[in-house]
C-alpha cells in the first residue's frame, strides 16, 4: 500500500518538475498570493444584511419568524406544531440555550439523537450567512448531525449575532472554536429537494420537507 503512495507521489513530482523547470519555481505560499491576497468576487447587496438573509431564506423555500426573546422559543415551537397539525412532540438538541428553557407540560420533549418516527427536530445554528440564506450547524454534543437530516420538520434557532455576510466570514467565526474543525460542518440552505424526476423541483427528498428559522436576540 505504501508502494502505491510512493509511486503516486513520484509520478506527481516528476510531472510537476518537468513543468517547473520550464516556468521557474514558486513556493506554494508565494504562488497562492497571486490570487488569495485580493477579496474574492462575490455577490453584493444594498439592503440591510438581515433583510438579505430573510429574502434568501424565502427564495430557498424556508420559513422564519423573529422572536423578541429566547424565552419565546417554546411558544413559537408550540404554535408551529399546531399550525402544521403535528402531534405535540419535539426532539431537542442538548444545547445550553434550549436546555435553559421551560417547556410547557403538554409538549413531549425528547433530547438527543433519534432515528425513527421523528416528526420535528429543534437545533441551534452555530452561524448563518446572508449571502445565500444559509444556516451553519457544527456536529458535536450540542448538535447531533442526524437531527439536521432525519426530521420531517427542522426548526432552527439562530442567535442574531451569529449572522455573517459571507462564507469567508463564517470560516473566520468557526476557526475560533477550540474544537475546529468538528466532524461535520453542515451548510443548510432551505429544505431538502430533488429535481431528478423530469427536472421538476420537489421538496422533501431525503432530508426535512420544511425548514423553519427562529431568530432570537
Amino acid at each position: 500500500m505504501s508502494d502505491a503512495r510512493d509511486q503516486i507521489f513520484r509520478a506527481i513530482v516528476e510531472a510537476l518538475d518537468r513543468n517547473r523547470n520550464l516556468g521557474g519555481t514558486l513556493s506554494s505560499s508565494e504562488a497562492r498570493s497571486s490570487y488569495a491576497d485580493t477579496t474574492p468576487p462575490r455577490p453584493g447587496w444594498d439592503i440591510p444584511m438581515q433583510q438579505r438573509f430573510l429574502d434568501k431564506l424565502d427564495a430557498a423555500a424556508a420559513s422564519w419568524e423573529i422572536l423578541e426573546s429566547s424565552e419565546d422559543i417554546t411558544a413559537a415551537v408550540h404554535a408551529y406544531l399546531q399550525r402544521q397539525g403535528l402531534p405535540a412532540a419535539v426532539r431537542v438538541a442538548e444545547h445550553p440555550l434550549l436546555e435553559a428553557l421551560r417547556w410547557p407540560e403538554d409538549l413531549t420533549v425528547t433530547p438527543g439523537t433519534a432515528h425513527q418516527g421523528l416528526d420535528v427536530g429543534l437545533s441551534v445554528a452555530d452561524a448563518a450567512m446572508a449571502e445565500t440564506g444559509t444556516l451553519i450547524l457544527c456536529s458535536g454534543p450540542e448538535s447531533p448531525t442526524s437531527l439536521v437530516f432525519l426530521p420531517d420538520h427542522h426548526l432552527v434557532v439562530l442567535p442574531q449575532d451569529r449572522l455573517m455576510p459571507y462564507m469567508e466570514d463564517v470560516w473566520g467565526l468557526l476557526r475560533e472554536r477550540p474544537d475546529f474543525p468538528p466532524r461535520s460542518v453542515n451548510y443548510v440552505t432551505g429544505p431538502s429537494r430533488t429535481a431528478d424526476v423530469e427536472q421538476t423541483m420537489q421538496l422533501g427528498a431525503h432530508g426535512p420537507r420544511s425548514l423553519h428559522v427562529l431568530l432570537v436576540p
Partner: protein
Amino acid sequence: MPTDRALGRRGKAMQISPQEFKPQARAALKDATLQQALGRAKVGFTEKRRKGVEHFDDFEALRERGRRIRDHALNHMDEYLERLESMVQAAGGQVHWARDDAEARDIILGLCQQRQARRVTKSKSMITEEIALNPALERAGMDVVETDLGEYIIQLAKEPPSHIIGPAIHKTRQQISELFDTYHHQGALKAKLREIPELVTEAREVLRDKFLSADVGITGANFLVAETGSIVLVTNEGNADLTHTLPGMHISVAGIDKVVPTLEDATTLLRLLGRSATGQEMSCYTTFVTGPRRTDDPDGPEEFHLVLLDNGRSRMLSGPYRDMLRCIRCAACMNHCPVYGAIGGHAYGWVYPGPMGSVLTPLFVGLENARDLPHACTLNGRCATVCPVKIPLPDLLRQLRSDQFRQDIVDRRTRLGLRVWGYLARQPRLYSLATRVGSRLLRILGGRRGRLSRLPLAGGWTSGRDFPAPQGARFRDQWKKRQQQRRQA
C-alpha cells in the same frame, strides 16, 4: 491496463462502450422516449445556469479566480496532498492510496469486509462509477444501495448514469412509474403513470429504511481541503449526509486532482459550482466532513477512510492535457453541447459523457478504445465559454485529434478533409475568404431556425446531428472590430 478490465466488464454488462459511439449515437437519435426526455433536460439546465450567472455581478472574475485556484492546486499537488493526508490522520481518519481502479476496489472491498458489511449505502459519485465499484461489492454478497434519487432510479433500471449531475435525466416519469411499480409493488399498479410528489415520497420511504440499516456509507468528494483535511459534499437531497452520518464506517473516494489549499478556496469554487451546475447560489446541503465521530459526539461513524485514486491523473498532470484536471464536474459543458443534447450520455459509452467526457474517456481508457469521441464535437466552443474553470475543451479535443492522427488510426477519408483545412489554416488570406463565403452560405441555408440538418459535403456529419448555422459576425470580424474599439477607447 486495469481500466480496460473495468471497461470490458461494464461494456459487457451494459452493452455499451466508447468504441461503439457511432451506432450508439444513431440508436439514440431514433429513440423517441429518449428524445422527449433530452428535450426537457436541455432547456431546463441552460435556463437555470443563465439565471444563476446573470445575478452575479462579475462572473468572469469569479471564473478567473476559479481557474487560478485550480491551477495553483495542481501545480503544488504534492504539497497539498501531503498536508491533506496528515490532517485527515490528525483528525483520526485513515488515508489509502490507489494507483488504479483495481487497487481502489480492493481497498474498499477489504474495508467493507473488515466491517462485515451486509448493506452499503452510497451517495452519487462519478468516481465509484469510474472504478466500477458496485459490481465488485455485489459479487462479494453485499447489498449496495444508491441513495441519490436519480442514481437509485438507474440502479433499478440496471443502467449507467447518462449525466454527471442528473444521472436519470434520460428517464421519463412513465418509465420511473413503471420501475417503482415493478420493484416496490411487484407490478400491482399495472404501470399506472404517477405524480412526481408521490414518486419522491415513495422513494424516500423505501430508502429511509436502507439508510438506517446500512453498515458502511460510501461517498465521493466534490473537493478535498488540504488545510483541514476535510472532504466537501454537495447535494440537494441530503442523501450524502445520511450516508456518512448513520453507518459505523464512512468511506470517501476521491481523485487526487480534487485537492484545494484552503476553506476559502473551496468557497470560491462552490460559488462557481452551484451556479454552473443548477443555477443555484448554494446547493441545499454543502458539508465539510473531517475524520470520524469525536469521543463526545452523539452520532457519526466510528471509522473514516479516505481513498485517494490516481488512475491516470498523475500522467495527465505531465502532458498537454493538464488543464482537464481543473474540472470540477459541474456538467455545464454537456448541458450546452449540441451533440450531447441530441444523443444523451449513454452513446459516449463510458462514465463521463459530453465534452468533458470526450476528453477524459480517451485519456482514461486509451485513444484507440475511444476513437470517435474526439470527433463527437462541432467545435462550436460553447462548452469552453461556460466552463467555470476555463478549460479549453475544444483545444483539448483538437489536440486529441492530432494525437490520433499521429497514431495513424483515422481513416483516409477524414484525413483528406483535415488536410484541406490544415492547408487553408496556414494561408490566412485564403482561410478568411473560405470561411467568409462558407459562413454566409451556411447562414442562408440555416434560415430562421438557425440550424442545418443537412450540410453539403458533410452528410456523414449531419446524419447524426444538427449543425448550428453561424450566428452574427464571424469570429475573425468580431475580433478585428473589438481590437479597433479597444484602440479607440
